[in-house]
Structures are given as C-alpha cells and as structure tokens.
C-alpha cells in the first residue's frame, strides 16, 4: 500500500497537505478519471471535486483505516459515479435516466490498475508480455526478434508477471 509518510488524522485539513497529496496522487487519480470517464474535461472536473471534497472532510481522514491514496480513490469513485449519473441522466432533458451500474466503474478501475502497473514495469518485461500475451505471438518468433533464446523470453514472462504482482500490491490492489 502506498502511504504518505507524514499522514496523520486530519491530514488534509491544511492547504499544504492538499498540495502534497495533489503532488503525490493527482497523476494516478487523473489517469483513472480519464480511463473511466473517457473525457479529459470531465476527468479534470472529477479530480478537482475529489480534492475539494477531501479537503472539506479532511478531519475525518484516519490513516489507521486506510491510506490517503485509498481514501482519495474512494472519493474519486463517488465523484465519477455522480458525474456518470449526471451524464446519463442529463437532468433537464426529462427522459428518465438509468442509474449507472457500478460494474463498468469497477471494470474501469481494474483495467486502469493493470495498465498503470504495466507502465511501471521494466521495458524488457513489458515487451515480452505485450508481444506474447496481448499480440499472441509465438515465443520462438519473439525470441528471434529480440535476439535472445526462447527460454529467456519465457523466463521474462515469469519475472514480468512477478514484477506486475509486486507493482499491483504497491498500488494497493488486493485479490
């Protein structure tokens, strides 16, 4: 789990703490917001609303319950639901909206986590996973292209998966 070293109860009640939290987590939050909302303008809106809500409720943050990152993601998740609801309901159009399902949001969160973890992998590991798993290419072909033995490609797949697991754990993913 990623924790801010100085996190204490009420950690976001001061502006300086908001700035620190923004510097530490805005990239991830924005990345997830773009991934789930599919719109950079709405994603900016979502991240802004997340930090403002976090600041308003700063006194309620308790690092004993969870990390600041987890807390911010929980707020963002609610904001994204609100934005998704607003977008699908389009208040004022009077057509009667459909309550957005939570499933697609969880799916987007899962997808974003894997994509972010893949971005954090070393190039060698990411490349063999992309070529052999996502592009479905034979190991021998990839090995020839990379100029390494086929066994090396297989071992990179193994160590790549292990590294991915570590990165996901660092990001707070729990299976």
């Amino acid at each position: 789990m990623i924790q801010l070293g100085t996190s204490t109860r009420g950690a976001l009640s001061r502006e300086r703490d908001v700035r620190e939290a923004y510097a530490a987590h805005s990239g991830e939050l924005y990345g997830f917001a773009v991934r789930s909302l599919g719109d950079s303008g709405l994603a900016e809106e979502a991240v802004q609303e997340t930090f403002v809500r976090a600041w308003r409720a700063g006194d309620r943050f308790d690092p004993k319950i969870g990390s600041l990152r987890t807390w911010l993601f929980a707020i963002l998740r609610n904001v994204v639901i609100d934005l998704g609801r607003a977008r699908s309901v389009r208040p004022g159009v009077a057509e009667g909206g459909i309550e957005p399902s939570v499933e697609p949001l969880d799916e987007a969160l899962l997808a974003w986590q894997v994509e972010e973890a893949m971005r954090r992998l070393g190039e060698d590991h990411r490349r063999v996973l992309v070529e052999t798993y996502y592009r479905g290419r034979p190991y021998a072909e990839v090995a020839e292209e990379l100029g390494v033995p086929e066994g090396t490609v297989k071992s990179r797949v193994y160590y790549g998966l292990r590294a991915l697991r570590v990165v996901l754990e660092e990001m707070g993913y729990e299976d």
Partner: protein
Amino acid sequence: MKTRNECREWRELLGAHALGRLEGDERAGLEAHLEGCADCSEELAGLAPVAKMLPHADPARFELAPEPPPELGRRIAATIEGEKQRARQRRRRTFGGFAFGGAAAAAVAAVLLLFVFGGSSPDASQPVEFTNLPEGINIYATLEPHAYGTEIHMYVHGVPSGTLCRVWLRGPRGVSYPAGTFRYRWGDDSDAVLSSALDISRTRAVVVDTGKHTFVAPVGKAPVAAVTQTEEEPT
C-alpha cells in the same frame, strides 16, 4: 529430492504456464514437477490472480500516461481558498458584524485574491430565477464568476427537511456539470455555497434535483419570463 537449480528451471516456465501458453513435453514435465513441489505450486497460485487480470487491460494504453494539466492544481487551490474566505466571512458575520479591522482585512484579502487568481468583482454576480415552482417551494440561486469557474449560492426552502439537493450547471451543448450536493434542513436559512469548473459565460442553466422534482432555471441571455421546467425525477 529436488535441487534448487531444478526448481529454478521449472519455475521460469510458470509464467507461460499461468498464461496457458505452455505445450507438449514442457507442459507435461512442469505439471509432473508441480505435483511433487509445494513451493512451485504455491508460486503458480500466486501468479494466477495477476494472469487473470491481464485480459482487462488495453495494451494500446500502456504507453499513454495522461497527465493532469498544470493549471488544475492552481484551480483546486483557488477553489479551496475561496471556500476558506467565505467561511471566514460567515464567522465574522456570526460574531457581531464587521469591525473596521476585519472589514479592512477582508478588503485586502479580496484584492489579493483578485490579483492572484484574476477573479471578478462581486458586482458580476448574477441572480437566477426559478419560476413556476410548486406551491410552498422557493428556490433562489446566485452565480459568481471566478478564475476557477463559477460559484453557486443556492437557497432552497419548502422541501422536506433532510432532502438531498443535487445541483448542476448546464453548458452550451446541454452537457450538465455537477456543482455539488447539499441537504435542506428545516429552520436553516443559510445558502449553500457550491462551485463548478464550468465558466459562467458558458453556463446556460442551473439545475436542481430535489429527488421528487428537477427544477431548471435559465441563465444569461434567456428572457426574464423564461419558464422553469419542472421535471420528474429520473428513475
């Protein structure tokens, strides 16, 4: 008795096996090894959840890491600063009006805010009229332009105490931007102060959803006599 090297050789095939890409003799050999090796079996079990997650990702996004625009941090800081200013003003009003010193400090702070964030004068605030409301319900709103977007002062009266009110600003293409939520409490005559990143010049309507109804009031060049729509709550 397995040696460390023997385990290592098989272990490096676990990734391909977890992804279902091991075939023939290699696969048969690894499976035989796994039957007698608890450590390698445990390692495989540890890789399985990661392998199951892979199909959810889109590899086209691996290279792209969207970054928030540089001004977003400043907008958030300005929004929070604005809320703090308003909270201070409310406290001053609560504790006996404006002493000269307090008023002077507020004026200096306002000038500083205008200087730093390029805000507009309070005169630019814009009242919004909600008309044709059900009997007993009153809704008023005032919009104020800011560098970060629009500040909305909402006053709702006449709905059941505890009603959750959701507010949106509607933009030029009919897209609604959430401005926040508040609860109406019986006996509380204060206004709710909300904010949105949508610029006031692009705001075409204010939308308030009280759960039972959705009320829409036009903003800007709309005629004074514009009719407020009363819409049933979406189900």
